[in-house]
């Protein structure tokens, strides 16, 4: 027991030393205050939702590295200060407060989850520090205040754009809607149906299912009876692949439409022949031949040894939009940065052209992908 006690005390001492050396490093970076521009990120780097937060941080890191390697902003280098939120709203609020009052950041990319963003955004807004979330899709995020922006596609926006595309570009006119019963599926279904109505079309039939269902024959039979040209599936790739297969078995010849929940190589694997011709919206397409996209994908793979996902790409774009605004502002004054951010128009990012609306929400041309010969292809 005596030995154990000693061991414990030594390890405690070690920890204290570690903490203090950690603080020491912090102090050094603040010395370089004048020469660097500080940008913070807030998101879950540990816990259940860590993958989203890590992708976001990585995307921002790639953007900052790219700019620093080409000489920084007006000769100043950018330093990134990532903060962990554990996916918890209180932690996200504390992290934001810390970035603002202790690290004196010029702007923040984050937070990642909608819930933490809604808790963190009022703090940034009250302090007058611009904050861009690259993944909080919940309604109300940009409404928090003038300093809050977001660079992601809300569920509503993608369903509306696909409905328009289907009617105007594909000249389809008889639709059926099949959606999964959760907030994602319902948001997609509601907006798709509304947009159709605004275009003087009415869905022939609207059916629902629950995630994890395996048998969709009841819904497909009902839908087939109405003889639609296309079925909009508001759901994820696993169920979408099964729905497409079962429809094919029943001899139903339709075009399948969907949202970003379709975007996964698993859709092709599970769906096989049946998903040929499926058209869906996506935030990011890593095989896009576009030069900037390929540069980003290569840099990301080289640094993190994995393929970038949508979170990383949107965070990269958010950081680039922010850097562009700081360049134009010519200063790190948060109010000047905010004014330039608000003017962002048609920013050519890797997730499409982005503009901010008056209240700071992103407007972008959403990518539309199609399955052709067992692979994804960008058709818009």
């Amino acid at each position, binding site marked *: 027991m005596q030995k154990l006690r000693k061991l*414990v005390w030594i390890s405690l001492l070690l920890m204290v030393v570690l903490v203090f050396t950690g603080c020491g490093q912090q102090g050094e970076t603040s010395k370089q205050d004048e020469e660097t521009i500080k940008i913070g990120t807030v998101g879950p780097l540990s816990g259940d939702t860590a993958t989203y937060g890590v992708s976001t941080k990585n995307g921002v890191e790639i953007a900052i590295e790219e700019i620093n390697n080409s000489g920084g902003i007006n000769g100043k280098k950018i330093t990134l200060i990532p903060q962990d939120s554990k996916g918890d709203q*209180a932690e996200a609020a504390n992290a934001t407060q810390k970035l603002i009052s202790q690290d004196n950041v010029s702007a923040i990319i984050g937070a990642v989850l909608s819930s933490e963003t809604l808790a963190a955004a*009022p703090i940034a807004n009250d302090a007058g520090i611009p904050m861009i979330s690259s993944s909080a899709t919940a309604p109300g995020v940009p409404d928090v205040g003038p300093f809050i922006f977001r660079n992601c596609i809300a569920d509503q926006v993608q369903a509306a754009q696909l409905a328009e595309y289907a009617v105007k570009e594909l000249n389809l006119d008889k639709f059926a809607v099949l959606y999964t019963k959760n907030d994602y599926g319902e948001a997609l279904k509601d907006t798709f149906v509304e947009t159709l109505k605004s275009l003087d079309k009415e869905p022939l039939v609207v059916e629902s299912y629950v995630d994890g269902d395996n048998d969709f024959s009841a819904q497909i039979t009902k839908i087939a009876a109405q003889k639609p040209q296309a079925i909009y599936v508001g759901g994820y790739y696993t169920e979408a692949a099964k729905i497409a297969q079962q429809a094919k078995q029943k001899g139903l010849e339709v075009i399948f439409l969907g949202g970003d929940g379709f975007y996964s190589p698993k859709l092709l694997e599970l769906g096989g022949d049946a998903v040929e011709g499926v058209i869906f919206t996506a935030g990011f397409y890593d095989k896009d031949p576009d030069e900037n996209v390929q540069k980003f994908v290569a840099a990301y793979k080289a640094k993190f040894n994995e393929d970038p996902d949508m979170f990383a790409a949107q965070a990269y774009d958010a950081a680039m939009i922010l850097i562009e605004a700081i360049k134009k502002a010519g200063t790190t004054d948060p109010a000047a940065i905010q004014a330039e951010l608000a003017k962002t128009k048609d920013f050519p990012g890797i997730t499409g052209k982005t503009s901010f609306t008056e209240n700071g929400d992103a407007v972008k041309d959403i990518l539309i992908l199609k399955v052709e010969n067992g692979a994804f292809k960008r058709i818009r």
Partner: protein
Amino acid sequence: MQVLVLVFINIILAISLNLVTGFTGQLSLGHAAFMGIGAYTSAILTLKASIPFLPALLLGGILAAIFGVIIGIPTLRLKGDYLAIATLGFGEILKIIELNLKITGGTVGLRGIRQETNIWVVSVAVVITIFIIYRIMKSRVGRSFIAIREDEVAAEAMGIDTAKYKVLAFAVAAFFAGIAGGLFAHFYRYINPNSFGFSRSIEILSMVVLGGMGKISGSIVGAAVLTAAPELLRSISAYRQLIYGILLVVMMIVRPEGILGDVDVKIPIQRKLEKLLNKNS
């Protein structure tokens, strides 16, 4: 300031859970659910019914206390692990209800709550909580709680209505947890069901255990340490969670009785205050 407010809110939560777990000896794993009831009730009242903050806060606490009684009665027959599982289940049920009701905003939660909580409000709330719980523990009721913890059968033999006092402990603890929830909601201005899940319950329980069960001063220390530690450790970002975990394990090995353990820290003022309080009663 941000962290200090959270420390104070957590002190209220830890002290109230201590009343059930530390003093009365009933292991509860659903304390965050009461916090959730208080948070949602007060937030809905100020947000949708435009009721002033203070009555909304109290109503939130009262509704939480009612739920405390409702959960207290059927779980009276349960002891130890079984009670713990039942309270855990209660917490999960409540989370599901919050997820599915329209008025609670479902998965999205409630946003745009008025900012009413500040450091002064929570300071007053903490002082009132400590005062009331301290008075309860010094009274006949408090001694009954401790008797139930020490030996339930003996307590009953001594004429203590164990059922009544167990429900009372749950109700009082739930009331203060509800108040803490209301303060939390009006500080962060946004709540969703995940804020009041199982992990929050465990966090509060850790504060009580780490500080020392059955001690008000222990809960204060436990809440302060466990809330401030992750924030102080931010400078070593990547190792933060690791060191936090190690700290917890080491603490439990070195001082299983909690930071304060059987040491009763008495600051000079505390002694004077106690004298004053005891004279008044």
